[in-house]
């Protein structure tokens, strides 16, 4: 079509390519024996990453707990910072952490037949000129209790992210908990 040809030749940079802009990179399914899941050798060919979570943890002391997120195996707590806004079902509350703790998404405990959903966006992850930022929305509801959780996390490092770990401090991930990594161009 002539009009399309004219437009294409006049535009520099990437043109929109329908249907190939959101790719599944890898999925980890828990077997009930590990408190850490990791994505490694993440290609740098995308603009943003998204992790979509449905899962639970074997945490007996409370109804739910939060996960930690770590990049490139960096466990230096002072390299991470987080702010959150949450709702408990009766009140809204907000806070911040300077730690890898509570940095990702809430997970529900075992034996309820309910897995917790979470969507974690990691922005411009391969850019070596920026510290890295994360936003997430996660929640839990099991009829009598629940939590909804907005989060913003900063990793103060300009390295390209090549690996991501999600860590449960309170118990192993339940069998069939699923962690799916996607790349957006």
């Amino acid at each position, binding site marked *: 079509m002539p009009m399309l040809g004219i437009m294409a030749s006049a535009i520099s940079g990437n043109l929109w390519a329908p249907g190939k802009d959101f790719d599944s990179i890898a999925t980890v399914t828990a077997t009930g024996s590990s408190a850490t899941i990791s994505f490694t050798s993440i290609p740098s060919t995308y603009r943003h990453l998204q992790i979509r979570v449905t899962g639970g943890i074997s945490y007996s002391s409370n109804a739910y707990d939060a996960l930690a997120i770590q990049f490139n195996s960096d466990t230096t707590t002072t390299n991470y910072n987080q702010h959150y806004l949450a709702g408990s079902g009766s009140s809204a509350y907000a806070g911040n952490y300077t730690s890898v703790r509570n940095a990702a998404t809430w997970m529900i405990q075992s034996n309820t037949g309910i897995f917790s959903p979470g969507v974690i966006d990691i922005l411009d992850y391969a850019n070596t000129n920026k510290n890295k930022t994360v936003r997430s929305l996660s929640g839990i*509801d099991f009829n009598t209790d629940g939590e909804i959780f907005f989060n913003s996390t900063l990793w103060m490092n300009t390295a390209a992210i090549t690996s991501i770990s999600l860590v449960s401090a309170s118990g192993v991930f339940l069998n069939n908990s699923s962690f799916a990594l996607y790349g957006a161009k």
Partner: protein
Amino acid sequence: MAAGNTYTQIASTTLGSSSTTINFTSIPSTYTDLVLVLQGTANSNYWDLYVRFNSDTASNYSVTRLFGNGSTAGSNRLSNDTLIQTTYYGNLGTGQSTQILNVMNYSNTTTNKTMLVRANNAANGVDASAGLWRSTAAITAINLLMFSGGSFQAGTTASLYGITAA
């Protein structure tokens, strides 16, 4: 690592006239998650959006919500309900509203079904919620509903997407 395209439009509709329901039916089980994007208006302000799955009208639903209207933030929970009321301040009105539903692992037959919702009404407020449908059935239909005189208006769009994990 496997890399494959995923994020496929399953169905989309633009209302030609007002309606109290928008239904997506015969949803295939071939995806991992569903994303439903609703953008549009209601016949007047402050009409809430309700969601059912598979037309189940039993008291199998609950939701935990977080909401704010520019001056106040709060949270509440609705339990043992016959549907999920996804909105509080981020409801539909005569101005444009956007609702985004993430329905996770919708076709598995082992766990109950959960979803995350973002509801936005720039003229009124914003919400986020975690909803639960206590059923292990695969979701094959999503019913968007309004009640008590509220209705989606002509021009409202609703699109359903499927996301496939590797």
